[in-house]
């Protein structure tokens, strides 16, 4: 693989992410990592369901009483939209349109930051209600499940930003195309996990 080789939209391969052996390895390896991540979150979800509404005797907090859907629904929409914008970015990556890719990635990052800000606001709100991390088994399970997702969002955003800055001057090549692709894949995974959190924690929580 020659990092200095220049491509045009015509000479750019259809699947630059798997055009080299390094790319193929990263592609397969990353899917496997996502399998491990899936088991990780499955363990967190199972624990959350086991400890939902469980606390010291006389605990006033329940999922039905605590969670409110409007804010969480907005967060869900923002994150889902950011997944869509990352798809646009990858569309332009595959068409060797670097500037458009960077622009869509920028929008993705902004949406992700908004999501993260709202999540911090939400956590802060609960803590002020007295529902802190150490309050009960329920609170511990909630913060660790949703917080682990939040940490993933933070990592995904840092990854996008690092890639965008590092490659801003040199454009796309066979070396960085798989990196962009995998960061976007990671972002989709984070999105899927959030869909489950929205369903299991918030929707099922509010229903009771």
């Amino acid at each position: 693989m020659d990092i200095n080789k220049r491509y045009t939209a015509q000479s750019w391969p259809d699947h630059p992410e798997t055009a080299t052996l390094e790319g193929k390895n990263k592609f397969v390896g990353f899917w496997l990592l996502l399998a491990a991540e899936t088991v990780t979150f499955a363990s967190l979800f199972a624990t959350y369901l086991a400890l939902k509404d469980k606390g010291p005797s006389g605990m006033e907090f329940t999922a039905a009483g605590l969670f409110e859907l409007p804010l969480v629904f907005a967060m869900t929409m923002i994150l889902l939209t950011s997944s869509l914008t990352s798809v646009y970015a990858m569309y332009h990556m595959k068409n060797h349109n670097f500037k458009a890719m960077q622009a869509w990635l920028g929008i993705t990052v902004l949406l992700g930051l908004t999501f993260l800000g709202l999540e911090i606001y939400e956590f802060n709100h609960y803590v002020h209600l007295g529902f802190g991390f150490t309050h009960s088994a329920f609170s511990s399970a909630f913060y660790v499940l949703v917080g682990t997702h939040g940490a993933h969002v933070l990592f995904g955003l840092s990854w996008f930003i690092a890639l965008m800055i590092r490659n801003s001057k040199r454009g796309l090549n066979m070396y960085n195309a798989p990196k962009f692709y995998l960061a976007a894949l990671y972002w989709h995974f984070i999105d899927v996990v959030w869909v489950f959190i929205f369903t299991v924690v918030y929707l099922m929580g509010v229903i009771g």
Partner: protein
Amino acid sequence: MSSLAQKKGFGAVLWDYLTTVDHKKIAILYLISGGFFFLVGGLEAMLIRIQLMKAGNDFLSAGLYNEIITMHGTTMIFLAAMPLLLAFMNAIMPLQIGARDVAFPFLNSLGFWLFFFGGIFLNLSWFMGGAPDAGWTNYASLALASEGHGIDFYALGLTISGFGTLIAGINFLVTIINMRAPGMTYMRMPLFTWTTFVASALILLAFPPLTIGLFFMIFDRLFDSNFFVVEMGGNTIIWEHLFWIFGHPEVYILILPAFGIFSEIFAIFSRKRLFGYTALVFATILIGFYGFMVWAHHMFTVGLGPTANAVFALATMIIAVPTGIKIFNWLLTIWGGSIQFSVAMVYAIAFIPSFVAGGVTGVMQAIAPLDYQLHDSYFIVAHFHYVIVGGVVLGLLAGTHLYWPKMFGTMLSEKLGMVTFWFFFIGFHLTFFIQHFLGLFGMPRRVYTFNADQGWDLYNLISSVGALFMAIGIIVLLVNVVLTTVKNVRVGNDPWGDGRTLEWAIPSPPPFYNFAQTPLVRGLDTYWIEKMEGNKEGMIYAEPLGDIHMPNGSIIPFVMSFGMFVAAFGALYFMDDTKPWALAVLVIGLGITFGSMLVRSLKDDLGFYITKEELIEDAKRGGNTDGHK
């Protein structure tokens, strides 16, 4: 280059190993550190047996005894057996599939150093206020009540080394999926590669639940969360589930690669193609699959109810079927073969009855009502030592003899090997066979002493004598290693003369790029096929001689792992009022780790090329084994 290598100073060699990304050197690192921890765990075992040698012994205090049994189990499983298997996987698997390295050489190095620092961190507990003492299973009800920082060392240390193992698992999977030589279809892969593949898949899916369980443990003990705190709504059974969802597949992570080593040995030293290769492959996959469905058989007495117990009991018994398939295939491989009783082969033959004995007691415990009787008794101790020592450790010793020439280019002495074998084999059965009866007589596991009127004296003494025999066997093995290294008699490509797979077609040890030209694989046991057809080179090639792309070495994996090591101390002392610097240490440690991750991400690392001319030069000299340009 090899003449240059001998002139290298100690510092240069050290730096070379700290920065290496060569799978063969990482294998040696795994072998040395796994071997070291094996000796530490063995020493702990000897202390246990000295304590239990006679009734009412006061050689160890009750508290220290708890620490020693905990560290013995934890060290042997996580820091000895697994890394030693990873050593052979690293050394041999890429050679067997005709690859020049693993898919992610950098991550391979990172995986090793994470394991290494995790293991060191765990063992530092001995010197820093006491080791963990809640058993290797670390049940939350015990662990949360444990004083001091022992449990924290356990949880943090295993988290770090667990990351390393997970990385290794992903790496091997991708290597086998993507990097097989042309013609090496899945059903032509040597069985050791197959078992590496399935064991890696188990690592991939089994380690995350353990990591999550350990995270809960860390949070509960160090950051005041309430996952396992019952009065705050927590539930200690969650730990047991998470631990065993990891813990049972872990048993197969250990035994499957050992099965792979034995499969290679049976074929080589019977001079026959493996009987029922296809059945062996599918039995391996089935064992891996069922391995995830049986975890609750460790929890029959918890009170999950008769339905759950019945389901898990049945699933457990089913596993005996694929395992039985393997046993019969091995027997039929030996049957009618032209058998050579090398040390490796003798280990393999000894393994069959030993492991079957362990398997049979396993099926006994799968009967849930009977398990209520056997649970927490020495019967359990005897059972799992029969499968782990009689299966995994015999496999490791056999693998050491089989692959030593390929890894180091010298042959271990077969005579001393036989001495080790007989001491170890007799000692093993002496130690553990009698423990079945101790268990049936009612001796509970994990007690530090017993009374003279309980009638357990003689049996415990016999067991302790057996442990001494095993220790002598291992000491002889160490002598063997030293003598072999000092004598340094070099061997050729195929020192056993009957090698069947690709690793025996190249020099011992192989040049750092393994294959100057990628081989073309024409069937199962490809090297054997070429030999039988009179091909002097032992291989046919899939490509002309040309430039080879190789990865650069890097110190970053070491630094990244060191950062985790530092951060773990910060987390450990986070809640101590007397140590306000803990938070700073935690932040600095994580900063080192994520900082080096960022450096790795931002700095291009494109590797380098070995030119065709250099390859020709190397071939004239008989191979470049140095590992650096």
